[in-house]
């Protein structure tokens, strides 16, 4: 028997809505007055993000207190770490403690936003562990990226706009994160889409950039179709239940409750989940809609880092995590060992990782790595490992952001604005120690090297997949881990080790000039603006060669690198911490329904008045059995695999193997010290043919590369890449093209000919029949008379026949 637990709250929690609101206002200020401010609006952006971060920290602290207060109230020691495993289907699951944990009521507030059909729909906040975590994360990363950007895009023509868009982008993500209902979620979702369009196409003078922006927006928009449809499906599915419980079918809380209530129609849930997942595929760059993501590298590097770490691409993952009850019951995640989410996630992991091998552009390697890591998150969600997946969002954000910023730092100070690892990098670790250090820490985290944060999250996903019976996906996860380690090692080697090449060696390529001439033939303003960021030569002397970046770049790097290690220890079973689990995971405990419906009306803070209560018999568990009448579940009760080094061993070994083999290959292929053609590592140079015989050793290396990499890795990844570029991309482009030509055809043939033609034809018919009738008017009296009398006669005869 549970007693009513008093959930503590606080100013920050109740006013968490300010977190997105502040950047939104900041955006308006930047757009309106940014140009007149001394720092072009960047100070407003940074200030607003800092303020948001402050509130987010406050909210985090208060949330932790709230969790604590609930756990104390429920008589349980929240940090005790005993979890209830309700089902004994899986051999590794053990029957946990009987107490379980009380559901921690989210802090929900809502204000009437619009009404329709008598229902009022709100705009508000839904603050729970997930939201708090992401709020903090997004605010923090955004702040760092903005600080980084003040240096990185200094002098850009659209400096102000850049910060405006960044700020709005963060606002969009924050709106989505604390969305109280689906419409608000869509709002944030689409604002991000818009901002990604603006940011990826930031240097829109080049057509490639604007095309990439278009592609990103459009591809995501294809997925958004699913979001619209899914929201509609879910709305009507949940609405009746929700209205009965004092809410409506958009409310995320209500949807969760409805999905877990057992009253929901399975097919509605399934199709709703499918539709929503399509949106996630588009947004989170899952196979097969991932192609926009690498192209999106056309944007400035800070944009890439922001997009790929904590925002935009994790939005899809977030959506699945947020509406997990829908997916959980819709796909019956607890009861099967294969489902759409897991499959898509798994495919994405492998496909993207394979692609990352053949990239020469450092940012593209990172891009594919992001795609692959997103695959992990999806896989995690798909196999019922909610917490590890969310934890992976958390850790991934730090190290991926760090990697991107490091790449930006390299291009900024090391490779003269090139991102080509083979041409313009190599041996940079000496010149840029801080960048290199933070890169390598983050890489280790990404690869899942033990004791780095990625290990704690990724390994948990893999482990839980196995634990929950998703054996096949367990293996996919392992393979993916090895591949990740391998391609990251390759990239690391190419960038920081071996011989300095191209710009990294202080050379100044002609290609760069050619690349930029397009900018030069235009007027001064546009040129300076468009490529100012890439060209502020005055800033670091006349090509003084690679050097370390200034503090505004390195500081974020260092901080992020530190977090790339540290963040993992929030939930590191290896060392016995599980704070993250306690604070973030929604508990699958039944709550009395009355607690949900607030008598005060919808605009009141629902969660504050309500006292959540865990029910007797909860141990049956939400998601396994329907909640008893009068109670409701808001989250499924999930299994947690218990950590053991033994179980982690395969993945550790595979990672090590990946790193090792890749390092060995890289050393051989790219870095042979005795290779006299170091400067010509551009292997397409015909010079190599002349010197091949001279360099026997290198010939061997070359052989390795040909035999192993080309015949094994290359065909596969090349094929994948080919498929990617020609089939998938081709499909996307083809859809675009065929859309255009279908439009063309319809317009020319149907609209102009048939539809319009019919109208025109009727006009012609009228006019022509007039013409045809004109001869009747012959001008001759006799004929007129004949017509007159003839018509009368015919009329008379007919009428006589009719009447008699």
């Amino acid at each position, binding site marked *: 028997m549970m007693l009513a637990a008093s959930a503590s709250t606080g100013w920050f929690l109740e006013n968490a809505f300010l977190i997105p609101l502040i950047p939104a206002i900041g955006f308006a200020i930047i757009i309106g007055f940014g140009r007149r401010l001394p720092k072009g609006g960047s100070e407003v952006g940074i200030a607003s993000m800092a303020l948001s971060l402050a509130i987010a920290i406050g909210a985090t602290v208060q949330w932790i207190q709230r969790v604590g207060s609930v756990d104390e109230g429920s008589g349980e020691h929240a940090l005790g770490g005993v979890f209830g495993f309700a089902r004994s289907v899986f051999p590794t699951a053990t029957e946990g403690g009987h107490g379980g944990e009380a559901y921690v009521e989210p802090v929900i507030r809502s204000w009437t936003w619009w009404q329709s059909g008598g229902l009022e729909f709100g705009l508000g906040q839904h603050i729970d562990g997930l939201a708090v975590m992401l709020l903090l994360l997004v605010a923090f990363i955004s702040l760092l990226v903005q600080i980084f950007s003040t240096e990185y895009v200094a002098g850009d023509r659209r400096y102000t706009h850049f910060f405006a868009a960044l700020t709005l982008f963060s606002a969009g993500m924050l709106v989505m994160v604390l969305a109280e209902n689906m419409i608000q979620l869509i709002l944030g979702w689409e604002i991000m889409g818009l901002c990604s369009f603006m940011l990826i196409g930031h240097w829109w003078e080049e057509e490639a950039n604007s095309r990439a922006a278009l592609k990103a927006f459009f591809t995501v928009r294809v997925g958004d179709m699913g979001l619209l449809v899914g929201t509609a499906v879910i709305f009507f599915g949940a609405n009746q239940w929700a209205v009965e419980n004092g809410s409506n079918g958009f409310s995320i809380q209500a949807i969760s409750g409805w999905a877990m209530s057992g009253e929901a129609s399975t097919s509605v849930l399934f199709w709703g989940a499918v539709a929503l997942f399509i949106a996630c595929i588009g947004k989170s760059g899952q196979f097969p809609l991932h192609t926009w993501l690498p192209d999106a590298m056309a944007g400035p590097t800070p944009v890439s880092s922001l997009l790929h770490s904590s925002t935009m691409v994790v939005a899809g993952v977030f959506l699945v995590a947020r509406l997990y009850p829908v997916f959980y019951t819709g796909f019956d995640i607890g009861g099967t060992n294969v489902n759409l989410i897991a499959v898509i996630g798994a495919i994405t992991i492998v496909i993207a990782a394979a692609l990352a091998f053949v990239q020469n552009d450092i940012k593209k390697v990172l891009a594919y790595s992001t795609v692959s890591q997103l695959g992990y998150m999806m896989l995690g969600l798909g196999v019922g490992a909610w917490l590890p997946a969310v934890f992976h969002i958390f850790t991934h954000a730090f190290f991926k952001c760090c990697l991107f910023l490091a790449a930006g730092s390299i291009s900024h100070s090391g490779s003269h604005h090139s991102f080509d690892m083979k041409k313009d990098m190599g041996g940079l670790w000496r010149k840029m120690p801080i960048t290199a250090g933070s890169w390598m820490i983050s890489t280790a985290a990404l690869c899942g090297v033990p004791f780095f944060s990625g290990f704690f999250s990724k390994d948990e996903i893999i482990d839980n997949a196995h634990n929950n019976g998703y054996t096949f996906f367990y293996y996919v996860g392992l393979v993916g881990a090895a591949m990740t380690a391998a391609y990251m090692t390759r990239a690391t080697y190419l960038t920081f080790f071996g011989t300095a090449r191209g710009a990294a060696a202080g050379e100044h390529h002609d290609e760069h000039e050619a690349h930029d001439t397009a900018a030069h033939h235009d007027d001064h303003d546009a040129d300076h603006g468009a490529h100012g960021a890439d060209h502020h030569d005055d800033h670091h002397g006349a090509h003084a060669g690679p050097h370390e970046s200034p503090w505004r770049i390195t500081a974020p790097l260092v901080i992020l690198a530190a977090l790339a290690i540290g963040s993992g220890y929030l939930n590191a079973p290896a060392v016995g911490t599980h704070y993250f689990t306690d604070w973030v995971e929604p508990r699958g405990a039944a709550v009395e329904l009355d607690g949900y419906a607030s008598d005060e009306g919808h605009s009141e803070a629902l969660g504050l008045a309500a006292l959540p209560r865990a029910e007797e018999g909860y141990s049956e568990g939400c998601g396994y059995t329907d909640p008893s009448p009068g109670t409701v579940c808001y989250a499924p009760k999930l299994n947690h695999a218990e950590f053991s080094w033994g179980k982690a061993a395969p993945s550790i070994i595979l990672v090590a193997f990946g790193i090792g083999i890749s390092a060995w290959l890289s050393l051989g292929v790219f870095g042979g010290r005795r290779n006299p053609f170091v400067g010509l590592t551009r292997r397409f140079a015909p010079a190599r043919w002349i010197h091949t015989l001279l360099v026997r050793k290198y010939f061997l290396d070359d052989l390795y590369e040909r035999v192993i990499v080309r015949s094994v890795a290359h065909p596969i990844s090349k094929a994948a890449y080919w498929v990617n570029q020609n089939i998938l991309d081709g499909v996307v482009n083809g859809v675009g093209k065929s859309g255009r030509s279908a439009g063309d055809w319809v317009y020319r043939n149907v609209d102009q000919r048939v539809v319009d033609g019919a109208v025109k034809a009727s*006009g012609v018919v*009228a*006019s022509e*029949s*007039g*013409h045809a*009738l*004109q001869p*009747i*008017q012959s*001008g001759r*009296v006799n*004929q*007129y*008379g004949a*017509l*007159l*009398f003839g*018509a*009368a006669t015919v*009329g*008379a005869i007919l*009428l*006589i026949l*009719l*009447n*008699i």
Partner: protein
Amino acid sequence: MITALLAQAWQAPTIDWHAIAPELVLVAGINLVLFIDLWLDESKKWAMATLSGMVLLGAFVPVVTLAVVGGDVRDAIFDGRYMIDEYALVLKGLFLLVGYVVVLMSQTELEEGGYYQGEFYVLLLVSVLGMVMMASSRDLLSVFVALELLSIPAYMMAAWRKRDPKSNEAGVKYYLLGVFASGVLLYGMSLLYGTTGTTKLTEIGAALAIGDPSVMQVLAVVLVITGFAFKISAVPFHTWAPDTYQGAPTPVTAFLSVASKAAGFTALLTVLYLGLYGATGVHEPYIWVLAALTMTIGNVVALRQTNIVRMLAYSSVSQGGFILMPLAVMATDAAESALRAVVIYLLIYAFSNLGAFCVIMAVARKTRSGEISSFGGLMGYAPGLGVLMTVFLASLAGIPPLGIWIAKLQSFRALIDAGSTAAYALAVIAAVNTVIAAAYYMRVLRQIWMAPAPDGDTSPVVVPPPIRLALAITAGGTVVLGILPGLVLRFADLPDLTGALGF
């Protein structure tokens, strides 16, 4: 039989002089004009127009007083064969007003063309007299006499430009076909008289209402309607109209297309409502076909016209179809609304159509052309005339809130009130026809608003005062009746005529 007649004691009928005052004023006026014309110097012939106008307005006075006095049962005079009821008064007023506007229009035309003036006005007045009588006629004989009285002067007026072969042709065609149609009408009337034994319309009606009509009666009805159909230029009896309209002097065309047509409709209404209503099976389908053909063929042929008068001629044919339309359902519950629709249509149509002819005259004085293209750029150099023409043509096209929309509405209303399938079908045909009609009206407007002036001639148009007055009357009528149709719709509440039939 004759002895029987003589045996009756001769009793002088009591004549209600007030009731027939309009006719008397006209007769006196005609004589006055004729007389003065003989003595008037050629240079002062312009006075004839003024005088004729005053005669027409003078005849209007008793119409008004009769309407005001109202109430009195005046159908007793002339044994119910000549009635002065509200229906008659409304139409009399219409004819007199149209006559007056035509006089205004004729004044400059005749002066500048050097035509006979005195005689013209006499004929015009006589024709109006015929129409005024037509409004009251309730007997085959009086209908016939009124019809001839209004027609014969019109034949001559159509040929008034003696030396113009087109005008000759117009007159001769009109005359020959008109007389032929009269012959057909008369033959029908004779059959009607023969089969019912009377020429009094109400009695004919009573006789026809009993049982099915005989062959001869059917024939009679068809021939009678044919005769009137000629007068209202219903297709296929319309062939004279375009040629005559084009050839006749413009004021005469206006007169024919409005007054003469209205008189034809008056006769048709009277005969149908009082005499032939019993023969539903005959006249309903016949008129249905006539209406459908009239509006459709009039419209599609009008699409091809390049001469504005000829286009208006066809337009007036098709308008005739719209006026005719409600009569196709007159034997149903909708009889009353059908009657009302026709009367309203005639009244409002008169304003708009006369107005259009006024503008044509005013513009033609400058351009000396009857082609539609001669209206190019009118908005540029004569915006007033341009706007007026827009108002008139838009009204003819039936666009609210200009005059004819309410008339068209009434016609549709009558059809839909009837509610039969045939009525709905006709309504749809009519709806399509309004679109076709709009097309050619818009063609003229396009010239006026959008085309450049031909030859770049943008000297202003001088509009003589009488035409100004005519334009003011017609435009005022078109707009005011469109916005406040209640003003005339009251007149169409005609208990007298329909009341006699027990509708």
